[in-house]
């Protein structure tokens, strides 16, 4: 039998993989002073990958294990954009704080490759392996400041807990394989439809999968690692973790649950509802007491994933669209906020929120950008976050889950308090030092891109939405 393996579907992934090796090799031939060039080299690779992805074909190959569709493409764009912004934000940071810069960029690219494979995986094994590729690179990246105790601790914690949760997840996968005899998402759903009653063991497998993926999403109660790792990891890595890694988890979640476990929706919807509620309440409430901006953003990201899971409950075309839109909005707003944190840290060397006092005088650009990103995270029009939340909540309301939407709106109000307390520091407090803060050109461009994304999606959502709408076709 002639096995059709169409490698052309994999061009973007393969290209980035090759480019990663190019980056690693180029590292050998670069002197310590010109290491930032490795960063620029990585950026070029990422931009070409983005172009390749946008122009790539759609279809399935490798016996249906690999599936290139609009859904995967939407997520690929999110991954690549986060990688671009992360690399752009790292250049100055890496020069100052990191050794082995070439490997640093290489690992970011490896992680991105893993995520891109993940979003195209139509098979539990591919999905698991690519998820691990993405995550293991991130373990190393978190611990990249070897001499820094917090960074080492972050990497260690992330690794141990990540391994534990992976174990749970692979256990769930093996149970599903045992009961259905397949690892293909499509065949699993067919088998599931044939089952008259769902065996308790299957429910257990679903719970294991939820636990494993919730760890990647940092949803409550699998979030414990998140604040510690976010605080300890080098800030660009935190930015990447908070967006790309979550988006990867979400892509896997949508693939598995909307595609293959769809027939068992009645089983998993209540579980996600509980997780979403806990994430929103815990994330938003605990964020109030934080005085480190990275920890604040960590808890905020826990809350944000709670909102996304509210949309996830919708289990419809609108739900997929809303999650993609929200992740796009979240990508620009959250990485944007971290970009400001990085720019600030590069000059001031502090992550304490009180250190931001008087930033509006010291750097009006950074201050207003931060406010816009935070407003987008709260979901205030006309920022992208508003559109995203609006769609997420509409998806849940369409299915009649009113109480969780009410809870989401209420907790959003709580979030306004801690987000705006940062703005309060920047605009209404005066710091001891009021010298101007300059910002590096690469970083400034990255902030400008994030700003543009945040505002443009908010003002012209319809064009983005129509582009994304195809993403749901894979499922409905």
């Amino acid at each position, binding site marked *: 039998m002639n096995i059709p393996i169409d490698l052309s579907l994999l061009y973007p992934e393969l290209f980035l993989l090759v480019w990663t090796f190019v980056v690693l090799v180029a590292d050998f031939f670069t002197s310590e002073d010109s290491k930032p060039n490795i960063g620029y080299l990585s950026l070029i690779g990422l931009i070409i990958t983005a172009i390749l992805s946008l122009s790539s074909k759609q279809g399935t190959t490798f016996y249906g294990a690999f599936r290139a569709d609009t859904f995967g493409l939407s997520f690929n764009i999110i991954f690549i954009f986060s990688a671009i912004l992360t690399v752009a934000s790292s250049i100055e940071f890496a020069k100052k704080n990191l050794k082995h810069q070439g490997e640093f960029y290489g690992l970011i690219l490896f992680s991105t490759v893993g995520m891109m494979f993940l979003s195209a995986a139509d098979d539990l094994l591919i999905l698991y392996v690519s998820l691990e590729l993405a995550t293991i690179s991130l373990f190393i990246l978190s611990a990249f400041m070897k001499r820094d105790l917090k960074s080492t601790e972050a990497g260690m914690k992330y690794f141990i807990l990540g391994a534990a949760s992976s174990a*749970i997840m692979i256990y769930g996968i093996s149970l599903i394989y045992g009961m259905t005899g397949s690892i293909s998402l499509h065949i699993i759903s067919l088998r599931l439809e044939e089952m008259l009653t769902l065996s308790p063991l299957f429910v*257990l497998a679903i719970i294991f999968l939820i636990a494993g993926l919730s760890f990647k999403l940092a949803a409550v109660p699998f979030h*414990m690692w998140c604040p510690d790792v976010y605080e300890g990891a080098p800030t660009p890595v935190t930015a990447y973790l908070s967006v790309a890694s979550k988006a990867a988890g979400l892509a896997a979640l949508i693939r598995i649950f909307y595609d293959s476990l769809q027939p068992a929706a009645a089983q998993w919807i209540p579980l996600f509802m509980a997780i979403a509620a806990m994430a929103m309440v815990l994330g938003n409430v605990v964020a109030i007491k934080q005085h480190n901006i990275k920890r604040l953003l960590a808890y905020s990201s826990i809350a944000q994933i709670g909102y996304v899971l509210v949309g996830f409950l919708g289990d419809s075309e609108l739900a997929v669209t809303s999650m993609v839109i929200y992740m796009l909005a979240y990508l620009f707003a959250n990485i944007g906020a971290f970009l400001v944190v990085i720019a600030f840290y590069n000059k001031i060397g502090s992550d304490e929120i009180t250190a931001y006092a008087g930033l509006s005088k010291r750097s009006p650009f950074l201050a207003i950008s931060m406010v816009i990103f935070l407003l987008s995270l709260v979901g205030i029009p006309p920022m992208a976050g508003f559109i995203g939340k609006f769609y997420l909540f509409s998806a849940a309301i369409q299915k009649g889950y009113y109480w969780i939407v009410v809870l989401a709106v209420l907790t959003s109000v709580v979030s306004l308090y801690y987000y705006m307390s940062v703005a309060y520091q920047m605009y209404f407090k005066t710091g001891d030092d009021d010298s101007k803060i300059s910002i590096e050109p690469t970083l400034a461009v990255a902030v400008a891109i994030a700003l543009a994304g945040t505002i443009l999606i908010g003002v012209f959502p319809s064009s983005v939405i129509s582009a994304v709408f195809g993403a749901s076709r894979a499922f409905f």
Partner: protein
Amino acid sequence: MIEHSYIIALLPLVSYVLIVFFFSKRDKVASGIAITAVLISFVLSVFALFETLADKGPHIIRFEWIVIPGFSLPLSIYFDPLTSVMLLVVTIVSSCVHIYSLGYMHGDPRFPRFFSFLSLFTFSMLGLVLSGSFVGTYIFWELVGLTSYLLIGFWFEKSSASNAGKKAFITTKTGDLGFLLGLLVMYFFAHTLDYQTFYSLVENNQISAGVLTAIGILLFMGAVGKSAQFPLHVWLPDAMEGPTPVSALIHAATMVAAGVYLTARIMSIIVVSHTAAMTIAYIGAFTAFMAASIALVQNDIKRVLAYSTISQLGYMMLALGVGGYVSGTFHLMTHAFFKALLFLGAGSVIHAVHTNDINEMGGLQKKMPITAITFYIASLSISGIFPLSGFWSKDEIFGAVMREGHYFLLIVAVLVAGMTSFYMFRLCFLTFTGKPRDQHKYDHSHESPKNMTYPLMVLAFLSIFAGWVGIPWLHKGYSSFVFFEHPHHESPVIWLMIISTIVALSGIYLAYLMYYKRSIDPVKVGERFKPIYTFLLNKWYFDELYMGTVIKFVYWFMEVLYRFDVGIIDWFVNFVGRFGLFNSRLWQTFDVYIIDGAVNGAGYLTRWISGGLRKIQTGQVQNYAFVIFLGVVLLILFRVM
């Protein structure tokens, strides 16, 4: 340009953002940005006008903002000749006022802030004009109200200014409540808030006349507040506490005309509902008469102009009420120019003599010739003297009222015209002619700088010629450009023109006798008609009336609520206290939290929980792993139960 007409409105917004965030300390840059933005908007409006002349439209540009299955929230632009005219009026007056403010506000410590507010206002006003749905109109309507509040109270150190701001805000809000109710009724019965969809529904008789009357009157309530019509006119004279350029822009030419604009936009209702139409016409006529009568005796130069504005807006409402779409909007345009000019002229005078009281002026003509001449031009125009702008537009209104057969209203309107020319020339003579009544102030007065006089000249030009586009013998004039449903050429009524001119001239002549030649002593006239004089001087006692009834009632009601609250809260606090005391025997430690919680409320509780939850985050990796497995167990338990 029409396709992208949103740019016209967005430019001032950009200016606002730039000034607020980047140039809040830079006088020159801030004013430069604001003026550039509004001038570009003006040029673009001219382009848009030419496009509209070629194709009247209406052009509807829809912009789907949020669309989900079963619900959509479109924003749209409704662009027809009226929109085009309004854009021009707003951008021209706004440009003049921007430039004028360079001189007038020179040296003010909050100079950049003033320009940022002007930009914000211009943005909101242009947005209001462009909006293609009642929702959009309502949003911008509130925005202009907000900027009006900010600018009236711009010199908030003066308590009169900040009080006037509050008064304006609250009074107009009363009307806005009607507007909002009108929108709700409209959405409930018509299921749309879009101009065009609504118009076609009305045209096809798909909405019952009763509902239309309700919508019409409710929306008109909003217009009554914004355009300072009886009985909500009391805020406008007080709003004169704001800087004079603001009075010219917001409280004479543009924002107050927004009510007239809104009324013009619901012309299709007026045509169908006789009740709504007559309500509008009679309120307009009564306002015109009442305000003009008050203006006869006021001594504050800006307040005379404020009452004059109210009176003229009443004219426009009257015109719209009798179905005179063309004449109402035409007068809106000409009035914007000459009234802005009058205010800017008054500002120039105030700038020179530092007082608003006309009793302390006199003879200023020699000191400030440009201001005086332009002021005369505007006064002639508002009095309706041939062939200035005001003549043509006022005549259109008389014609419209007469053709519809409302002879009583016609008599009122003509009478008001006579009163108008009298109080305007009383003002002119007292300010610019005769002997200086305050020698000291006279000696220190001087002509204003060029950046103030040039805008006066531009507006004077427009006060003379802008009305010529509406000369009734003109076949391609205003009435064949801005019209409702289809253009109709009315033959001019010559005898009416003659009568109105005679009335206007006799008003001027009377003022001449009393205040220039002094052959009739105004004081003696005042003595003779003392009751009427005091009645007018006290502005028909409206403020006192409202103080004694509405405000008193509100205070009384507040008192009742307050007592009610105190009772309940006292009871509640006592209850909590006793409960706490009772508990304290058993739960000594707990009760602190209950009382604290009741006192400090949810905020404290949230923070407390936050702190508590934070303690779970021990930093120990084994604890974290434990929680993960605990989480799995919890999920299983959750599923089993």
